[in-house]
């Protein structure tokens, strides 16, 4: 083979390599490597105290951590809580987002200001909004409880974020509401509806007016137009949104951690990761839970890229 001089295009390929090199390095070091390292840790008996020792690199693998995690009597409850929190939180945020988008859709004065306002829960730092809501819902100093008691709506303040069950008398039927979990789910809806709102609004604006005009000419009333035109046009974005919200809520840590620390029946898998590591000083078990989260995420991503992304 004759050695040929590099052409302009060979140089371009080399240039591309150098242009992507910094990004690649940072991502490799701070995303890819930790995942692999996490897998390694999950297969070893490591405690928080061992971090400086040599045992971290010894090649003695064990499935003990996974056995511990799955064998934990709490595991079933935590998984159930996670699923309820994730599903309800996703659905609620999308429903609220849909409502908000329908309310804001159309032309009226102050529309862009409203849009701005509606996005703010999502823009604001998580620490600020969680502490504000904790304050509002606080049983001693919270404005909500005080107002409700003042107006005679409640006999006594409710610790929204720190009580596991709330017995409710509904027309003679006693219902046990998981109080803290419900509060956390409602917060989830409040904070993340803007995400759905933005996407649904964008989709709504993309529906051609001609469709509505044609339907009006065909005699469809406003409600019929909504059910026969708007909703079908939104179905794709709604299902994609659900998938994304589900994935992200499933892996959400900050919100619950800051609101309840996982107390009062709000312990989800992500909180478990933290608890194992910094409550029980068991890094191995913590990594094992993280690997479970990662596995679930991978399945969802696979589903998304294999089926949903293809259709769009």
């Amino acid at each position, binding site marked *: 083979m004759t050695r040929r001089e590099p052409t302009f295009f060979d140089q371009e390929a080399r240039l*591309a390599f150098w242009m*992507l090199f910094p990004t690649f390095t940072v991502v490799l070091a701070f995303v890819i490597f930790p*995942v692999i*390292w996490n897998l390694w840790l999950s297969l070893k008996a490591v405690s928080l105290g061992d971090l400086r020792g040599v045992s971290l690199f010894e090649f003695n693998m064990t499935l003990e951590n996974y056995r511990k995690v799955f064998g934990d009597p709490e595991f079933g409850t935590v998984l159930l809580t996670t699923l309820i929190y994730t599903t309800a939180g996703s659905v609620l945020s999308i429903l609220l987002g849909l409502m908000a988008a329908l309310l804001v859709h159309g032309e009226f004065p102050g529309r862009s200001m409203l849009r701005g306002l509606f996005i703010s829960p999502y823009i604001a*730092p998580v620490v600020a909004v969680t502490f504000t809501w904790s304050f509002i819902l606080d049983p001693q100093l919270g404005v909500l409880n005080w107002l409700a008691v003042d107006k005679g709506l409640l006999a006594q303040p409710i610790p929204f974020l720190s009580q596991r069950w709330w017995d409710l008398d509904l027309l003679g039927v006693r219902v046990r509401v998981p109080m803290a979990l419900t509060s956390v789910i409602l917060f989830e809806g409040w904070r*993340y509806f803007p995400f759905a709102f933005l996407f649904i609004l964008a989709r709504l604006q993309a529906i051609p007016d001609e469709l509505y005009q044609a339907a009006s000419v065909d005699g469809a009333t406003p409600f019929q137009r909504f059910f026969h035109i708007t909703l079908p046009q939104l179905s794709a974005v709604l299902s994609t949104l659900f998938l994304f919200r589900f994935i992200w809520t499933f892996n959400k840590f900050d919100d619950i951690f800051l609101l309840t620390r996982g107390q009062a029946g709000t312990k989800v898998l992500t909180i478990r990761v933290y608890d194992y590591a910094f409550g029980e000083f068991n890094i191995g078990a913590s990594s094992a839970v993280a690997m479970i989260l990662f596995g679930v995420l991978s399945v969802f991503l696979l589903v998304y890229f294999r089926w949903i992304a293809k259709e769009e």
Partner: protein
Amino acid sequence: MSRERLEKTIIQILRVMGLLVFIAIVAFPFYWMMVSSFRSLGEILLKPANLGLDIRKINLHAYYEVLFQHGFLRYICNSVYVSVVTVVLSVTLATVGGYAVTRLRFRGREFMSYSILLIYMFPAIVLVIPLYVMFSRMGFRDSINLLILVYLAQTLPVALYMLRSYFQTLPPEIEHAGLIDGCSRFSVIWRIIIPLSAPGLASVALYTFMIAWNEFLFAFMFLDTPEKFTLSRGVVQLAGSVHLSKQLVMAASVMVTLPILVFFLLFERYLVRGLTAGAMKG
């Protein structure tokens, strides 16, 4: 009344009511955050259900206390430093990398574009423990510059993906004209791509700023020394140390919220574009 008219009236009524409810629920926490931060501890304890804001009684003492006694002046500087450096690095690297992925031909380009998207779906909670272990062991976990690198890894894939989508909307012929007119690839980026992508770059910068400014988990896990705290980390610290003085926590919350909301209102157009283009993680 025809069915059309009837339904339209119902829709109008529902709409007005719905908007009022939504506005109340969305705005109230922000209102309450601000109002409470202007109160004294006494007011908070004595009249927790006082919804109004008495302008004559605005009390800025909480801000004074938070800034000067709880070290928030320092935290503000740290947060600004972390966010600005992250934005500058992230936007620069993402511009260069996004351009390479969009326009240059090289092996593995398709793979690159795909994996960018995948990587940005990786949840922070999965990464935080191994990174914690690794950097604790190496002994430089408690570092603000390390935090910047972590934020860079968190923002770069999104930023690159967003810019790639933006660059794809630019007609390649303009760059071809530049190449024929005598530009190298770097001068194409500098003289043609950057001027043409100003709105896209603004979206990415704003979005990256938001991620870095708001980030809580890594700051919480990595930083031990109060002098290195970011605002978010500082607020958590403060909330844990004062029990009844909610006005302090609210004042601190206002401080961390206000800049991002102001930015957002000023550049709303760009941020909305960024949020929908990047399909934000959160």
